[in-house]
């Protein structure tokens, strides 16, 4: 059950999307999101969608996997869609009780659902094709200038890297503890809210203890290897901008520009 959540998962591969510099991908994602929120009507949405489909196609990530990662967000998407459907004023098509569906409402709901789906897919595509280490390296380099303002960029990116790394581990651990307590007759499904909250204790206590234990062990292991933060630290893989990075960035810039211009034309 918990295994369905693929947040932060990385699918190793060697496609062009995998090989792009992580900085390129991060900048592209920001550009993509800006374009997505600038998009207004079908033509602009179509452009952004084409960009997404191109990236998904090149990455060889099965679209099914991407869509499956939407599962936990299904409720948010449905509620957003319904709100847009019922609360947009315009030409009334159907009316019953206090509900009223307008033509504009249908369009707005469809576009809003499309927007959230595309937003999530784009973000997941980044984590699916970029290893956590590459991702945090890229982030650290991009945010590098902030170091002058005494922002602990390296420490933050290291924390992010560790957090991403341990999501699947903790998921697995949770699954195991749930099974073990179920085997002792723990019941998580019946009873009122208070009882159910209490029933979570046998899971949360061992989970917290094991998280602290892991943190302790990790800290010891890092110290054993003389880790002492970012000062003077070099990288095994020096990221470098290659031709395909410039091409990809150019394409991204073209997308943002095209969407911005078309928007002013009301498309």
């Amino acid at each position, binding site marked *: 059950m918990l295994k369905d959540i693929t947040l932060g998962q990385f699918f190793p591969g060697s496609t062009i999307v995998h090989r792009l510099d992580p900085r390129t991908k991060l900048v592209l994602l920001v550009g993509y999101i800006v374009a997505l929120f600038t998009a207004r009507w079908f033509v602009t949405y179509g452009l952004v969608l084409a960009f997404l489909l191109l990236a998904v196609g090149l990455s060889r990530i099965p679209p099914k996997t991407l869509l499956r990662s939407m599962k936990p967000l299904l409720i948010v998407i449905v509620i957003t869609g319904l709100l847009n459907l019922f609360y947009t004023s315009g030409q009334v098509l159907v009316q019953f009780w206090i509900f009223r569906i307008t033509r504009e409402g249908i369009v707005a709901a469809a576009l809003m659902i499309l927007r959230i789906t595309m937003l999530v897919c784009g973000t997941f595509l980044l984590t699916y094709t970029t290893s956590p280490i590459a991702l945090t390296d890229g982030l650290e380099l991009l945010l590098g200038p902030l170091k002058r303002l005494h922002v602990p960029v390296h420490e933050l990116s290291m924390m992010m890297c560790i957090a991403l790394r341990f999501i699947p581990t903790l998921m697995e651990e949770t699954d195991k503890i749930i099974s073990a307590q179920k*085997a002792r007759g723990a019941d998580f499904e019946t009873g009122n809210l208070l009882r159910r909250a209490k029933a979570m204790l046998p899971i949360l206590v061992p989970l917290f203890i094991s998280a602290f234990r892991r943190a302790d062990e990790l800290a010891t292991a890092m110290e054993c290897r003389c880790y002492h933060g970012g000062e003077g630290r070099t990288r095994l893989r020096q990221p470098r901008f290659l031709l395909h990075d410039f091409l990809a960035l150019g394409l991204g810039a073209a997308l943002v520009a095209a969407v911005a211009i078309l928007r002013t034309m009301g498309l």
Partner: protein
Amino acid sequence: MHPILETKDLRHVYSAGTPFEHTALDGVSLSIFPGEFLGIIGHTGSGKSTLIQHLNALLRPTSGQVLLGGEDIWKDKHFTRQARFRVGLVFQYPEYQLFEETVAKDIAFGPKNMGLQPEEIDRRVREAAGFAGLPEALLDKSPFDLSGGQKRRVAIAGVIAMEPEVLILDEPTAGLDPAGRESILDNLRRFQQAKNAAIVMVSHSMEEVAANAGRLIVMDEGRVFADGAPAEVFARAEALQQIGLAVPQVTAVFLRLRAMGLSLPPVYTVEQARRAILAAKEARPC
């Protein structure tokens, strides 16, 4: 004798319909009888863990049945819950599942979930602690102040306290020192004899299963590869080696000796080997 627990053509497929689809169990049929000590061995990924989680209804089979006392374990919700108490399962490294303030309270978690009276719970906690080899003085301590081996005993006692008819343990001795291993196995045998419970032990150690189990099941790629008395199973040493399992070291030595022409019986424990050598010496004094 009727089996207490049976599986019929059990199949389990993980993540069906995705690229990660994986058949963990592929037609497993086996029986477990009251009072027996059954060893399950197999390579990592052979389906052992998936199998034992079906036996107490933690996993639902993709197809096939698990029968407890002749009744389908998934018959109805009530029976499924009862089945979890009647078939106790101790996971690998169970010491990481302790959560209560005191050892006694943690052992009482299972019996409490069964809805027993306080006096009965108290009796079971004391008895289970005894079976698991925990001194009474530890009962009021926090489980987090105990040593690793003691924590594991607390976790095992927590399952024993439900007085299961079948007690399943996944590598109960992993990571313990030899003395600790022997003592835990000894405790399990005492529980088995006192309550006539069936014990199912999953293990990697051939020596350990050979010395304890009355019957062995070898799993390979989601199927039952062999099922029989240790002597029968270890007689197929070559077939076992082909699926990446070794026979106990002493069995391997005796197989070589037999291949060299010495007339020795097949053995699988050091004690048997000692007796066989002494007997051979007596028959042919040199």
